[in-house]
């Protein structure tokens, strides 16, 4: 009597036993993800502690970054990171959304697929290759323009005035747009190459979201006699804006942490920004350019502290993105 009832229990116990082993194994491997995060915070925090302890908040607000004197304030490179990232974002977003609209709304299928694929490939190009191209191709073009500007006699008064201002460590709105060197490298080139690099992130997210906009939405608008642009601007883009914003923030995260392409072209100067064309630096570019030479403890620790701030920044951006997407997603869409 008890035998048939007994047998399934052993089987169940057996399978649940092996299931437990498997689950523990999977859990152990998945915990490596948690471990990587915890280790990252711990290791960066420990290495960065001497610098953060010595300088406190001045590490983020101080303007001098001088390894010789042992004074480290990251304000200028934080400004560099914010300026380059936001400028690149402002330029790239309209372009990216437009290309997404082209792929999703305008292009016939035989064209949409290859163009969409090309845009995805743009995201696959390594940072160093972008840097190499910017250095060898765009920098000489900018350099020629800058040389022509310097040689033009009409610009002499402006240049003299700006040079004076710059020498005093100041700048004006006009001088900010006057070239300060003829090498082509500098902040502007970094913005250009960053723009190109983050375009595909916004573009591919925007394309996916635009494709998700229900056909009803479009058809209802067309039925009212709207033109294609009116359908796009009043029916599609409002519907897709949360997703597009998510893509924009993803791109912002990329731009903040983008390292080598920027490090190769920005000129690595820790002085306060005086001209759009002048040398500057970003948090990531300083890590790449200085960590290898940072022998002294405080210098090394300061560079790791920069890495820790970058880490914290990317976590914040990630959370902001989720929050914004959750807030802005139209009701009924998840």
């Amino acid at each position: 009597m008890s035998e048939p009832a007994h047998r399934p229990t052993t089987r169940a116990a057996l399978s649940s036993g092996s299931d437990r082993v498997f689950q523990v194994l999977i859990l152990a491997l998945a915990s490596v993800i948690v471990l990587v995060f915890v280790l990252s915070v711990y290791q960066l925090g420990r290495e960065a502690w001497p610098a953060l302890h010595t300088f406190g908040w001045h590490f983020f607000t101080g303007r001098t970054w001088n390894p010789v004197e042992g004074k480290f304030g990251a304000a200028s490179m934080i400004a560099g990171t914010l300026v380059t990232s936001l400028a690149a974002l402002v330029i790239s977003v309209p372009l990216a959304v437009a290309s997404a609209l082209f792929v999703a709304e305008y292009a016939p299928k035989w064209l949409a697929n290859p163009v969409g694929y090309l845009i995805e490939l743009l995201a696959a190009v390594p940072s160093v290759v972008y840097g190499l191209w910017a250095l060898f191709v765009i920098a000489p073009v900018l350099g020629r323009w800058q040389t022509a500007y310097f040689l033009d006699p009409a610009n002499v008064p402006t240049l003299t005035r700006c040079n004076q201002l710059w020498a005093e460590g100041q700048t004006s709105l006009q001088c900010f747009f006057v070239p300060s060197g003829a090498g082509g490298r500098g902040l502007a080139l970094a913005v250009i190459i960053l723009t190109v690099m983050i375009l595909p992130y916004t573009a591919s997210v925007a394309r996916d979201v635009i494709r998700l906009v229900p056909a009803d939405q479009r058809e209802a608008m067309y039925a009212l006699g709207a033109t294609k642009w009116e359908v796009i601007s009043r029916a599609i883009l409002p519907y897709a804006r949360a997703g597009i914003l998510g893509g924009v923030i993803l791109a912002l995260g990329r731009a903040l942490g983008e390292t080598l392409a920027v490090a190769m072209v920005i000129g690595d100067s820790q002085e306060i920004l005086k001209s759009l064309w002048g040398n500057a630096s970003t948090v990531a570019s300083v890590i790449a350019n200085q960590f290898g030479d940072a022998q002294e403890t405080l210098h090394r620790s300061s560079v790791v502290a920069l890495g820790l701030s970058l880490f914290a920044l990317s976590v914040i951006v990630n959370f902001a993105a989720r929050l914004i997407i959750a807030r802005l997603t139209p009701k009924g869409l998840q």
Partner: protein
Amino acid sequence: MMRAAAVTSARPAARLSPVRRVKNLLMGALILLATLLVVAPLILIFVYLLREGLGALNLDFFTRTPAPEGEAGGGLLNAIAGSLEMLAMASVIGVLVGVAGGIFLAEYPRHPLMPTVRMLSDVLAGIPAIVMGLVAYSLIVLRFGFSGLAGALALGFLMIPIVVRTTEEVLKLVPLSVREAGLSLGLPQWVVILNIVLPAAAGGIVTGVMLALARVAGEAAPLLFTAFGNSSVNLDPTRPMSALPLEIYRGATSAYDENQRLAKAGALLLITLIFLTSLLARRASRVKR
């Protein structure tokens, strides 16, 4: 009757006003122009590298190490070997942890740790590569010195979130009925996952791994302070190792023409391999659907 009359009389007014028509055309043209601007850099970069780098992609490039500074000739065998070896080591970490993480997120959705793992995986995906280099530096290099292993560790960490994401998505595409069919036969859950669900999702997982490889193969930033670089061929993972992106970085910022030439050829090779990998990955995922 009245309504029909109203519609007929409204018809002329419904014709597009010139302002709307012009605006519509103008925006269409702008969108086309913007798309051209977006795609242009890719084509320009590829054409530039083909023109400058193809000539240097000869037998020497694949069989020799860089010539001493300032001398002509040489190749990037050290970088090719280093890249391959570090990518292989990184894949072990990335695939093992990534696939397991994906299985955990997709198959154990009610586990209390699930939200934490999902969130941290997303967070890791956003961490800049150079920061991962610093982490690997303080984990390994500080104790054991520069090594290929440290570089591979940084690359593996970068692969994890990409593989987790694709694995989870693909596993969720496998219909629930498939799992139920297996469970109803009395199979334990782990047999169902390993022998039924995973094979059904294999194509998608391979795609994810290839995309992750294509992404980290071009990373030089996390290798700067970990693998460090090596001018001779080194297969010992406990010693400094070179990698293609590293050599491209050093060459492009070097003052010597010869190094720049090698950098361009290396960039052409790297970019071609990455494009081919993404193309294959895309193919594989399309066949699956």
